[in-house]
């Protein structure tokens, strides 16, 4: 592989908290031999991956490596793009193949929520943003909705900042608050899994730190899969890390191992900043 002259290598600090927790985590999502296509263009090649329950898994890799594509396979968001298809393999959540015949993508997405790269609060009030998911499921009980709003906003560490202006537009919030509002909106429907597609890429370092703290809190309740371009972020907040390159899974291991002692030279080159 060609490397630029005098590469600036750096070591990523891996905090002790990201060391594997005691006890063996259960596998929640089992991706098996997955081949994924955009039309005729293959985006994922034979991906095999077991994601742990109630843990944070980070997907890292250079742009176009397929990490976002895989993430969007997990709640079938790719169905929205014309011509996409899973040509081979399966994704099982709790042993159910989510691309199977009897699976409704709508029901799947209620269990597998998603937070997007660009925060996308709806141009409605904060209250309506949080209750959106429940309302479309037919929940109209005011007391129950109020309760969920408070619980979700507290869960997203946003309650104290917005409790006095619940009925103002969600677009009046700052960028970081908007992203936490989107997280609150996602946890309001109580999914099992939260997919995060580069949730901090548009945020400043302080807002990023808040979201990362939040991820630490959320993993007590939810399984979190996060796609990130920031290796420090992966190192700080994930339990396991998967490194993708050119649509292939190169290495998947405990975050500590990936950053301190990667077994694959490509992984080593990437995490030390020599390419990507």
């Amino acid at each position: 592989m060609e490397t630029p002259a005098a590469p600036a290598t750096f070591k990523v600090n891996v905090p002790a908290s990201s060391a594997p927790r005691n006890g063996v985590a259960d596998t929640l999502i089992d991706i098996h031999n997955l081949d994924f296509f955009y039309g005729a263009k293959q985006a994922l090649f034979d991906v095999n991956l077991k994601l742990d329950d109630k843990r944070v898994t980070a997907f890292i890799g250079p742009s176009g490596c397929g990490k976002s594509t895989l993430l969007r396979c997990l709640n079938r968001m790719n169905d929205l793009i014309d011509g996409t298809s899973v040509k081979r393999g399966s994704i099982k959540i709790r042993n159910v193949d989510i691309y199977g015949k009897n699976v409704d993508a709508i029901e799947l997405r209620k269990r597998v929520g998603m937070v997007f790269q660009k925060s996308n609060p709806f141009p409605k009030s904060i209250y309506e943003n949080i209750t959106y998911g429940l309302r479309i499921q037919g929940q109209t009980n005011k007391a129950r909705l109020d309760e969920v709003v408070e619980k979700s906003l507290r869960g997203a560490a946003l309650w104290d900042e917005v409790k006095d202006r619940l009925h103002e537009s969600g677009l009046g919030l700052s960028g970081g608050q908007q992203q936490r509002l989107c997280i609150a909106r996602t946890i309001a429907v109580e999914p099992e899994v939260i997919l995060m597609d580069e949730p901090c890429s548009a945020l400043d370092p302080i807002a990023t730190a808040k979201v990362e703290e939040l991820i630490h809190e959320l993993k007590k309740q939810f399984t979190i899969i996060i796609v990130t371009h920031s290796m420090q972020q992966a190192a700080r907040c994930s339990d396991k890390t998967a490194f993708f390159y050119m649509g292939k899974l190169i290495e998947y291991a405990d975050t500590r191992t990936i950053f301190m002692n990667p077994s694959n030279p490509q992984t080593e080159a990437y995490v030390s900043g020599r390419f990507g």
Partner: protein
Amino acid sequence: MSDPVVNPFAHKASRGRTLEKLTFWVFRLATYLVLFCGLFVFGDIILKGSGTVLNAFKTTDTFPYVTNTFLFEAPESLYVFTHNGKKLEMGDKEFRAYREAAESQAKAQGKPAPKFATESYVYSAGGIWPCIVGTVLLVVGSMTIALFLGVSSAIYLNEYAKDGPVVRFIRLAILNLAGVPSIVFGLFGLGMFVLFFNWNVSLIAGWFTLAFMVLPVVITASEEALKAVPKGFREGSLALGATKWQTIRSNVLPYALPGILTSSILGIARVAGETAPIMFTAAYVVRDKLPWDVEKVGDFFFQGVMALPYHIYVVSSKIPQNDYTERVQYGTAFVFLGIVALIAMTSIVLRNKLRSRYKW
């Protein structure tokens, strides 16, 4: 004494500079010419037409004690005659009452019945109330149909249909439909609704003909409005487990509505103004009954109506021209402009309200 400073930025004559000046003036004059033509047309209609409306105010004995005969009465023939040395102008009804009164007065006095040498001019007295009613009915009905069909198919094309040769062909066909002359839509309406469906010359035939005429505009503009709604709103909603329709209804359509309304404003002006599509399908030259004078509710849809643009056409080309008819022509055109402006203004206010409610 030093040398005088040479100014390097001094104006230098060149071909480029001359051309610059020339083009600037061509563009400026073209703009002013357009402005002048517009002002002339509007000014002419307002000056000559407003008189007809303003002179028609009359007091009445009953509430609301004032009425405008031009706006709120049906067209009548105008009688012009000289009686007792005075030159008088009267509408049909007024003239008959006047003649009867004069005759009975003469009878009481034992004189021979007076002779009236009258000149009559059709449609030059009375007003245009049935035309106003007809035009409003045509606009409301056809825009309802056009918006329902147009927004539905725009949603289908933009949100549901997979992009491919079929969809592209449909889009092309819709765009081409926008270029079809309105008289062709009139013939289509005649063949399809009036003759084939046997609806005769009726409101409903006019509604559908006009609706089909503005559909391309409504569809194209609605699609643009839907496209302008950020993708994030759709994805965010779908990721929460909403169905496609739930997403569209609560998180796409409300934000596209101002844009859709903007296009429908153009549609309204066109629907209200077109003569050709309704002359075979919905418009009567003259009709005494007002549209709500029907025996059965169902008959409402199957009656022809008078309409402002067709009335202008009739009074300007189908009857002998003179000073008296000119008053009606300009008066009708003035009222017509006023109504279109009113409807358009209402839509603009509505749109601005929606826009301020849904901002992103």
